[in-house]
């Protein structure tokens, strides 16, 4: 069944690796919904988290193709509902600071005042969407930046594929 699936890919921290991985999704004409990259605990490794919409067979095939790359050490794939998923939003805004403060408090977001007004929010992607909608109704949005999702697999997560190490 087609659904959002999260790939956790542990890779060598060097040039060209992200290109090789995204190229595999490109080859089969899949749109990457989100991609985030960060260092891991190991000195020379990074973790790439990619979200795509795919069925089980496609996910299995992607996981194998990605794992075959020599610079890829491990691939874990899990349906989104098997993961704890968060996203960071930074929104640069114009409007009444007091009103903005109220919205921020409502969402558990943080308002930063350093020359401009920046709203910082961490939450589930659906809540990020909702907050953006509210902000655009009430304030002037100068610019928004979203990180894309970062996630960890839940302890009781189901249908998890694991390749490597």
């Amino acid at each position: 069944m087609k659904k959002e699936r999260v790939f956790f890919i542990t890779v060598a921290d060097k040039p060209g690796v992200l290109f090789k991985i995204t190229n595999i999704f490109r080859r089969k004409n899949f749109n990457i919904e989100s991609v985030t990259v960060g260092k891991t605990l190991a000195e020379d490794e990074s973790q790439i988290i990619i979200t795509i919409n795919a069925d089980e067979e496609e996910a299995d095939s992607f996981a194998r193709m990605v794992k075959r790359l020599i610079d890829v050490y491990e691939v874990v794939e899990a349906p989104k509902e098997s993961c704890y998923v968060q996203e960071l939003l930074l929104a640069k805004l114009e409007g009444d600071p007091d009103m903005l403060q109220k919205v921020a408090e409502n969402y558990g977001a943080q308002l930063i005042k350093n020359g401009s007004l920046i709203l910082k929010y961490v939450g589930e992607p659906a809540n990020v969407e909702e907050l953006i909608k509210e902000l655009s109704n009430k304030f002037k949005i100068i610019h928004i930046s979203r990180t894309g999702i970062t996630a960890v697999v839940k302890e009781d997560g189901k249908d998890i594929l694991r390749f490597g190490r």
Partner: protein
Amino acid sequence: MIVMASYLSGAQALVKALEEEKVEVIFGIPGGATLPFYDALKDSNIRHVLARHEQSAAHMADGYARASGKVGVCTATSGPGATNLLTGIATAYLDSSPVVALTGQVAKSYIGKDAFQEIDTVGIYTPVVKYAFQPLSASEIPFDVKAAFYIASTGRQGPVLIDIPKDVQTETAEIEFPEKVEIKGYRPYIKPDPEAVREAAKLIIQAQKPVILVGGGAVKSEVGPLILELAETFMIPIASTLMGKGAVPENHFLSVGPIGMHGTYHANTLIMESDLIIGIGVRFSDRTTMDIKEFTKERMILHFDIDPTEARKNIVNEFPVIGDLKESLTILVSEIKKMMPYMKNSPWHKRVKELKDYYDGRIFGEKAMSPLIIKKIREILGPDDIVTTEVGQAQAWAELFYKVLKPRTFITSGGLGTMGFGFPAAIGAKVAKFDKTVVDIAGDGSFLMTSNSLATSVAEGIPVVVVILNNSVLGMIAQWQRIVYNNRYIASYLGETPNFPALAKAYGAEGVRVNGIEDFVKYFKEAVRSEVTYVIDVPISPEENVFPFVPAGKSLREMIV
């Protein structure tokens, strides 16, 4: 561990690193961005074979690798050199052939500035190589070379690129040469799970109508004797893919030849009547299985392979056993031998024998000249002599009628289907096995794509025999247009040009146009004895079809004969 350190240029370090890998020969063409490398090569004993087009240089290295089992090395300059070479490297990739490609690159400071003959070589090669290196300092070169050879030749083999900027070739440094390399994340050796092998053995015992299907992986890992042991214990027929030809001798009483779009009638029939397919070093490509639903219906599929990516790639409900083939099969054979063997006169074995007796070597179609030519080639050549093929009808006739007796003596572009492959691959194979006769079974269309390799063959003293099955058309295209597109021919007629014997002679080779089978035999024998490159032009009818033929989208049952 470091064996030695010396003060060298990057180019000298490259040559020294290649010598450390015991490279005997490099196929290539120099250019601006590889001049420092060539200058250093002048002081080496490594032989250089000058190609006339980079694509051919890559095919030569590939042919050398496939004939010898060693890593083939080719080189080209930056830009157009690298893009020309690409087709040959993609060919090696699709057939898992160990080739190391060395390309020159513009100096580091020019990269990304659309400099003269600059192209993003690593970018365009990445999807068709096992790995791509781009050393950015001379001191990185020995590691990259050692790693490239290691990656190319281990696990599922394949080509590796090393793209070296010109200033990295010229800079000098104290350079250390590692004795061994370790590549994190690369574990080519996979130990098979004995439990899975035992499970596989059970499935084989239970099967009533098993067929073994051998592929290119079985040729490369030299498991022919193990496969024969398995087959003979249970009297299981052995079919092959195009790439698997020669893994076991095709004159063995259990061999039924290749399956696929142009498989033998009996092999295709048996595989579709089977209840178990034992795939060994195969990837179940579309040209082998044809309609995959029909192929997998009503039978179990066992799949032995070294590459975990292949498990369930094309056949979702197969039973994969991933790991080193030699080890998997050794366990399998010992497990099987503990159990009750098949009876020789089982109904399945009778069926195999009945079909084989009737269809083995059978020629379909009225105007069939090409199968006769190919059978004659087989009669005249020794078991260790080598045949390469071009791509198209000539390839399919060779697949059907040339019985391969030893591994690595049948060399063809199976995966990518690259026209123009056979002739330069023959030159590479001849360099690897100089005491053997090497014959390219060609069509006129394919041969013309790389016929300028005649210059290399003559100038470098690498004599091979080219047999052109000359029908003045792009034969396979014409056959499809005739059968599938209701005789609506377009762009498939080549005409009676060039005059191939004259072309051969213009290059200093021998050339002859023969008339009929007897004439062919006479000149072919002369060509085999001859110490010069020999082109034999065999006129055949433009309407000659390759049969059996399974049209695209049909099942292996639906053969046109």
